[in-house]
């Protein structure tokens, strides 16, 4: 039995690691989305975290934990720097500004040869990230998200999400709430970037572009933006899907796209809304209320 487990782990440990890593990124986005911030800055934050932590471990000889912390901190600083001006923008403009941030970071990484290695990237990065680091990080982030939702801060954020004008008129400082949440999101994505950099021996500017940002958005949206477990489910689903569909070769990409479209079409509240519907379904009286809330939120 134990032999079987160790073989399973040896064969699939990287998939487990990737699931956890993507979950971590998913929760970073989950925080941003909980105040209606459709951020495409994830790639940029991860790049900051990754390059900074690699610089710390390889050039400055830092131990792993402070290096990850430094990377996360730099990403949080980046979030504060762009969040301050950009969070006054709303909707599409915010999205465009965060997209521009990711592109700027990518182009800097491409051209700052002495630190980032340019297009060639950095290889032979020591492998420090263990599965338990990732699991611990995900557990901590879930706990933080859980307590946050129940706090005064969380209620204020929920109000901002519903209608920021009303929230503002009730005395919630919308800008500061959004900014602090955006910084927290940057911190988590930066930490994820640092962990990712020390997982697979190599980083390059191409790893942290727009694709990464869009992928990160799909985790919480597929899983469900309103459920605490949503990002976890979404990230695991999107990470396992390409592996599960490997048998189909060329058809794989079509199948993946079709499945994602199907989920968005038939479960607009994300995969976790299946459970919600069933729980509320038992208490018939609340079904309408649930549907109404759902509508108000979308």
């Amino acid at each position, binding site marked *: 039995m134990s032999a079987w487990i160790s*073989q399973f782990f*040896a*064969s*699939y*440990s*990287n*998939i487990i690691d*990737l699931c956890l890593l993507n979950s971590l990124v998913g929760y970073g986005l989950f925080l941003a989305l909980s105040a209606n911030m459709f951020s495409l800055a994830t790639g940029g934050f991860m790049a900051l975290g990754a390059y900074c932590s690699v610089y710390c471990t390889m050039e400055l000889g830092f131990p792993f934990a402070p290096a990850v912390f430094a990377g996360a901190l730099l990403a949080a600083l980046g979030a504060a720097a762009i969040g301050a001006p950009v969070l006054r923008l709303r909707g599409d403009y915010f999205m465009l500004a965060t997209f521009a941030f990711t592109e700027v970071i990518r182009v800097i990484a*491409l*051209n700052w040869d002495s630190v980032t290695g*340019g*297009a*060639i*990237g950095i*290889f*032979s990065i020591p*492998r420090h990230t263990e599965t338990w680091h990732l699991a611990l990080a995900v557990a901590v982030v879930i706990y933080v998200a859980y307590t946050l939702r129940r706090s005064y801060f969380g209620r204020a954020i929920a109000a901002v999400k519903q209608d920021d004008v009303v929230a503002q008129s009730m005395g919630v400082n919308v800008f500061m709430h959004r900014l602090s949440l955006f910084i927290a999101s940057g911190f988590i994505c930066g930490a994820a970037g640092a962990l990712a950099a020390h997982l*697979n*021996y*190599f980083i*390059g*500017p*191409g*790893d942290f572009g727009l694709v990464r940002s869009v992928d990160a958005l799909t985790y919480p949206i597929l899983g469900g933006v309103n459920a605490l477990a949503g990002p976890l489910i979404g990230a695991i689903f999107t990470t396992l899907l*390409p*592996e599960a569909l*490997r048998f189909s*070769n*060329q058809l*794989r*990409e079509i199948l993946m796209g079709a499945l994602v479209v199907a989920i968005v079409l038939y479960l607009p509240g994300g995969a976790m809304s299946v459970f919600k519907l069933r729980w509320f379904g038992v208490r018939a009286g609340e079904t309408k209320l649930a549907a109404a809330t759902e509508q108000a939120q979308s």
Partner: protein
Amino acid sequence: MKRSVFALLLSAAGAMAFSSAALSETPVNIGIVQATSGGSAALYGLMQKNGAELAIDEINTSGKLGDYKLVGIHQDDAGDRGQSVNIFQRLINQEKVAVILGPTLATSAFAADPLAQKAGVPVIASSNTAPGITDMGDYIFRTSPPESMVFPGVLAYVKKKYSPKTAAQIYGIDDTLMKSAYAVHKKALESEDIKIVATETFQKGDVDYSAQLTKIKAANPDILVIGGLAEETANIVRQARQLGIPPSTVILGANAAISNKLAELAGATADGFTVGSGWFIQYDSPKNKAFVEAYRKRYSSDPDNFAAQAYTSVYVVADAVKRAGGVSDLKKLRDAIAATKDLEANNGSFSFDAHREPAVTPKVLVMKGGKFILAAD
């Protein structure tokens, strides 16, 4: 009691089945990690998968390995590094492969090859031309000659024939392969004492190079060296001639620019375009003719140098399995692969050098009338 008897019977039956299989043939699992989906990587990946599978079937039908039967296990990594690592882990621990061919991209190799090195499973790449691949460990080999082995030969030929004094360089700044190719080109130019009078860059997806080429034209170089993939190189060559860079300015390209597509896209302007390669389709040897014919028959298209190199990789493995006397000891197999010498291959005789790089003589090819032909002295 009944159950244990049944289990005993079952295991006995299993043991018998196993031993009888072992008597007739022993499978040698070969992992083929090539991207067959996921953008431009798939162009190179599919060619190599085809080449490798063709060679596996040929060797199995020929019976030259006796009781050993090669079993190719192809997995698509979509050019994505995370997936390459997933696949390597599974191939090594689950499928117990004896050797892995691939992966398609050098960036994937930097992430995945260390796993194989650690597990002691040999890896043979047939499309990684970036520097540093075989430095990852003594289990990492490649049959694709790196740019640094090919380009100096090309330049030496051009120097001898045209004796250029000045050169201009243009390369893709956001591509791993092209940026390292640029460094190789620059070093070769400097060591040949050719003065670089202009250096320009472009990015993936660019289609208009007139700004860079106008500057290069103003510098009036004797030769122009392009660090780009096939499509980009074709566009640059065509636009350079249209902008009036004269045919007396010889244009040289990187190894990765070799593709049948280049002639299609650049047309007559590509005449005189010079590259270096470890293999080319008209190479005159019975082995190569048989390869090209078999490939055309099976896939109804022409092989390129990546297909040829993947094909060679499988023959290297087969030869090593024979000399190592099986695959029960992968250390022995690695040593046998490393000792590969003068193996008859589709580009002449194939050997690995001390750094596990291919010791082939690069050939200088010149484009003429839409086809690459061997450069005449």
